[in-house]
């Protein structure tokens, strides 16, 4: 199981490199969707079917939206890097951060040893033990999402609402008018 997750992650890393380095925007969009589907399979393997259901559909939507955005361009491509010196400095900085991260990330608890098994006072332990009795939901993730931490879900719904209102506002045809002009109704 662990090896499989590793292979999947390797696949995702490769997909990400292709997505960023390829010159063809359409290929790049498709590769990033492949990375997303890799994460879907990883979620299934990591025992998170609840989470896996959402990105399947979300990835499809992102794919359609991004393809829509790229198609109009006539796929004009260019090698899009910074000037050489700045590129070198940035890349070096990122590599240093990455190496530092790899050095310290061993400090994390081992993979496969979650907080429920390790920490006695973890709230997730309560959720697993008492979730059904407290909320009546047998899907503990839903119990956490919509009862114990329902306030987060309200925030999440609000984020979606915000971005939709924002996108509608950004995409409107006419943004400015004279103060005396009446409000134009769209749609």
């Amino acid at each position: 199981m662990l090896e499989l997750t590793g292979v999947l992650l390797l696949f995702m890393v490769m997909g990400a490199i292709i997505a960023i380095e390829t010159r063809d925007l359409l290929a790049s969009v498709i590769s990033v969707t492949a990375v997303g589907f890799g994460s879907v399979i990883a979620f299934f393997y990591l025992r998170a079917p609840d989470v896996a259901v959402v990105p399947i559909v979300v990835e499809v939507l992102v794919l359609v939206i991004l393809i829509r955005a790229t198609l109009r361009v006539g796929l004009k491509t260019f090698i899009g890097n910074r000037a050489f010196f700045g590129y070198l400095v940035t890349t070096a900085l990122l590599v240093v951060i990455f190496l530092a991260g790899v050095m310290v990330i061993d400090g994390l608890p081992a993979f496969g040893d979650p907080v429920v098994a390790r920490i006695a006072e973890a709230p997730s332990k309560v959720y697993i033990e008492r979730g059904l009795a407290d909320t009546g939901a047998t899907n503990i993730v839903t119990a956490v999402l919509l009862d114990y931490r329902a306030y987060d879900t309200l925030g999440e719904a609000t984020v979606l609402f915000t971005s939709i209102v924002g996108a509608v506002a950004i995409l409107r045809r006419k943004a400015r008018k004279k103060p005396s002009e009446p409000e134009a109704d769209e749609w």
Partner: protein
Amino acid sequence: MHYALVLMLFMIGLYGVVVKRNLIKIIISLVIMETAINVFIIMIGYRSDGMAPIMQQTMAPEVFVRTSVDPVPQALVLTAIVIGLGVTAMTVSIAMRLYERYGTYDVREIRRLRG
């Protein structure tokens, strides 16, 4: 090892955001960063040979408590995915409006974003 791979995925996304000069490539890099973090959070909650945090009628509650993976990261990732979707939708709409203005996604031809 696994965590290092996820960190690498994250850093590739960050590299793309910092270095690339195409608006679509920047959006893609942001998506990759989000994916990396989502996988990382789910990995934190994984228990070796565990089971999904969904109770089944055929299974004794004690066994469930002993083998279930952590449900909290899954709830967090659900939230994070939706937030990511919202951000992506908004970025794409801004990028489309910019394309309308300049006829290009190239940052170098768009005045302010230079540098």
